[in-house]
Structure formats: C-alpha cells, structure tokens
C-alpha cells in the first residue's frame, strides 16, 4: 500500500494535466492521446487526493465520495424516429429532435450515485446517464421518455456512453483513482474531465481538466485533406481508384 501511494504521489507530481481546487487535487495520466493508424482504444487513469483545507490528509472517519465525468466538448443535434406498423410495413412515424447530445460520456463513482447525493444535486451537475441534459432542438417539442432512452441505449451499444458506479477506488483515506477505457471509436476532439468530491450529499469541490484526442500522422493528413480540399480530394480519390483498376487489369493481362 505504501509503495502504491508513493508511486501515485510521484505520478501526480510528474503528471501533465494537474488541477488544484480548494481541497481537491486531481490529475490524468495523459492529457493528449494521439490517434495513429494502429489506434484501437486506450486506457487513461484519473487520480487525485482530497485534503483538508490545512493541506493534511483527510481523517479516516470523514466519508468522502468522488465522481469522475468525462464528456466531449461538442454537443450534437440528434433526431430520433420511431417505426410503427402501417399495414404490413414498418415505417418511421413519430420523430423528436434533441440538442446537447454529447458524443462521449463516461462516469465513474465511488458508490451508486443515488447513495452519493439527492436527485436535484445530480441533475444540477448532469451526473449519470439518465441525467444528461438533452433538450429539445430549437423549434421542436420535447419527446416522451422513450425517445430519450433510445439515444442512451444506442450510445451505450456503441461504447461511447458508460457509467461505472463503484469504479473509483480509494487507495488510502485521501488518494483515489479510476481507470477510463477509451473505446476505439472515441470521437476525436477535446474531452472535458471533471472530478467532483462530495461530502454529505453536497459537492464540496470540483476540478476540471482537458484531454485532447487528436489524429496524427497519415490519419491527420487525410482527414485535413478531406475537410479543407474536398473537391481535390474527390478528384484524387476517383483518379487513384481508376488507376488501381487499370493496374489490376494489366497485372492480369498475361494470365487471361
């Protein structure tokens, strides 16, 4: 235990993303993830320590809870359609549009959320998959619960939404850590990492960091090319495809 703690303190000291609040110090093991052509997802460790205002470790008697949330910066507009039977055919009937849908949402906490705080507190900080603020898109009416749930179900199925209650562990009275598995399809862009510490059902402090997820090398060059020179990209794609077809027919010429 002592060795782990010493190692953690060292990592904390060396860590790149380091934020400090009133009585909460938190860090991430990496603040930049580069997506290369061999990227198949990766793990990031979020860790930290809770201290009293005087800078000493918490007395073991005081119960503290920690909630770690990682969500993507840019929210999406999403339309949910519901298929219904019309005659023999299933077709889209009702539809609802939502705004503020994060592309990625990960939550990890020391205990089940309902034991940590009351519903209104959880709502306020959007803690928990069922509490992400998904509003109706401008010019659209709010949908029944089932439409909202369809978004969560789909995103959980794609591994971009996850909630692990009990996955934040305390290594000692004040040191905590949790491992975040970023899936291979994690959206490129900035992720916001927020650590909340709770005491008696209230947020006592929070700490926010940014995790940059960026394509690099050939992946970066290709996606920039596609985005900034779309016409040229399209022409090159067509020409290279045609060239590939031509070369293959040459290669097979002798053999036919």
């Amino acid at each position, binding site marked *: 235990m002592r060795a782990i703690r010493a190692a953690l303190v060292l990592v904390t000291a060396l860590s790149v993303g380091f934020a400090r609040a009133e009585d909460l110090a938190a860090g991430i093991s990496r603040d930049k993830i580069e997506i290369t052509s061999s990227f198949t997802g990766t793990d990031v460790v979020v860790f930290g320590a809770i201290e009293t205002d005087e800078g000493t470790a918490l007395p073991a008697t005081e119960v503290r809870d920690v909630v770690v949330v990682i969500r993507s910066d840019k929210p999406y507009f*999403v339309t*949910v*359609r519901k298929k219904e039977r019309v005659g023999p055919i*299933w077709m889209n009937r009702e539809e609802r549009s939502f705004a503020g849908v994060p592309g990625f949402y990960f939550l990890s906490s020391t205990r089940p959320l309902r034991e940590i705080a009351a519903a209104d507190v959880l709502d306020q900080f959007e803690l928990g998959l069922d509490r992400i603020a998904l509003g109706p898109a401008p010019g659209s009416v709010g949908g029944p619960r*089932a439409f909202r749930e*369809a978004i969560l179900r789909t995103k959980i199925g794609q591994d971009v939404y996850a909630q692990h209650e009990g996955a934040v562990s305390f290594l000692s009275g004040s040191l905590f850590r949790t491992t975040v598995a970023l899936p291979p399809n994690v959206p490129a862009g900035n992720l916001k990492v927020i650590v909340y510490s709770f005491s008696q059902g209230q947020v006592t402090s929070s700490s926010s960091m940014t995790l940059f997820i960026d394509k690099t090398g050939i992946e970066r060059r290709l996606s920039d090319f596609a985005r900034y020179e779309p016409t040229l990209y399209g*022409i090159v794609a067509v020409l290279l*495809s045609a060239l590939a*077809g031509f070369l293959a027919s040459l290669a097979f010429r002798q053999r036919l």
Partner: protein
Amino acid sequence: MQIYLPIAEMPVNIFLMIGLGAAVGFLSGMFGVGGGFILTPFLMFWGIPPAVAVATQSTQIVASSVSGVITHWRKGNVDFKMGGVLLGGGLVGSVLGIQVFNALKAAGQADLFISLSYVIFLGSVGGLMFWESLQTVRHGGSNVGSIKREPGGHYWVHGWPLKMRFQRSKLYISAIPPALLGVLIGLLAVIMGVGGGFILVPAMIYLLRMPTSIVIGTSLFQIIFVAAFSTLLHAITNQSVDAILAALLIVGGVFGAQFGIRYGERLRSDWLRLCLAALVLMICLRLGFDLVWPPADPFNLSIEGIE
C-alpha cells in the same frame, strides 16, 4: 490486424475489408453490376457510419469497374456507342433525380420510398429474369450467348425514329429506348444511391436484346461514370469518403473483378442470368423482410450535426 479509419473514426480489420472488397468485385466482374447494393449494407453492419459507407463504396466501384471494363474491352465486349447513349440519358436522369429526392426528403419518407422502390424493382426484374433463364436452362439453353433473336426480327423498339447502328451489339434500333433507359437509371442512381447495374443489365438483355457478353462490359462502362460522379458529390458535400477504407476495398475489388470475369466466361449465359436473378431476388427478399418484420428496436437515431 486492425487499422484506424481517419474519416469513419474507428478501426476495422484489414483482411475482413479486403475480403469484402474481393467478394463484391468478383460479383461485379461476373455480372456487370456495381455491387453497391451489397457492399453498403455490409459496411454498415460492421459499424461504418452510413454516410461513410455509401460514399466510400462508390470509389471501390470505380476501381473494380475500370478493372473489369479494360479486360472486357480487350475481348471486344464493350459497346461504347451504346454506353455513351445510356450515359447521356443518365445525366438527364440524375438531374431529375436530385429534385425528386429533395421532395421526398422534405416529406420525411425518403428511406421508405427507397426501400419500397428497391423491393419493387428488384422483385419484378429478378422474378422475370429468374423465370426466363430457368426456362432457357431447362430447354438446354442457347449457345449463342444471347436470348433467341429471329434473324431480322422486329420488336416494338424497332419502329421508333432516330435509328442508330450499334455494331458491337449487332443492333440497328432507335436511340430513344436506350436514352430513356439511361434516364431511368440516372434517376434511380441518385434516389437509391446505387449504380443501377442490376436494373441496367436485365434491361439491356431483355428490352434492348443485346448479347449478354456485351451487356456486362457495357454496363460496367456506364457504372464507372455514375460511381465517379457519386464519389465526387459525396467528397464535396459530405466529406465522407474514407481513403483508407477505400484503399482496402479497392485492393480486394480490382482482383476480385478479374477473377469474376474469368469465372463468368466459363458459365453459360443462361446460367449466368439465372445466378444474377437469384442474387437480385435474394437482396429483394432481405429488403422486403426488413420492411415487414418487426424491428429489433423501433427507434432509430440520426445525427443531424454539431451545435
């Protein structure tokens, strides 16, 4: 072995994608169809976002069609004149198609219309072709390589004006029917997002009465341009062509097409038509099944954009 796709933003298995490209290329070389109607659903099944799947498969079709056309052309199996007339019509059709498609989208039922028109077209074309080729196979088949044509025989298309001589296809017919066929294919290509080979091939065989061997090369010739146009359009408007996914599919596709041609030549033309009919009917059944079978999840999501 996995590789990360820059536009789809997800990793895929390299060998799986090359294999998929090869399988579709094989069908393309053998039957003269682009194969987009098979490739797109497969890509989506492996989690590729629909927009990327549709846009990227069109580059694979360009590659395997070029690969196929050059080989067919060396064998004298491409009627460029006929292809040109079809393309002219196709251009008009795609312009019309964009307007029809936008009207449907505004009505919110583009998906349903696409599925229904697929089922109707595939079902009727596939059914008719299956029945005809089965009859031919049963009666020992014709070795001429085309459906029976009385020497100097006249069909309904022969009475029309603007007659042209299509030497490769051994036809002297009005240019209007192939041009109209082109319009229809262009219309469908835009609305349904496919090259239209599976409709063009049977139409050339049965309506225009071209020899089956010439039909395949000519269809592929026409598909090159439709697919190239589609690639450009997607690259410019959606930026959804994934170069790495395209490269994997193309590597498989261009070789698959060559094997498809060799295999197709060994097959008698009535059997070839029977196989194509079976393929078309299978796709039709699958789509029809999706329309009437209760969906696993009645809700479906579409991402409209970033706020």
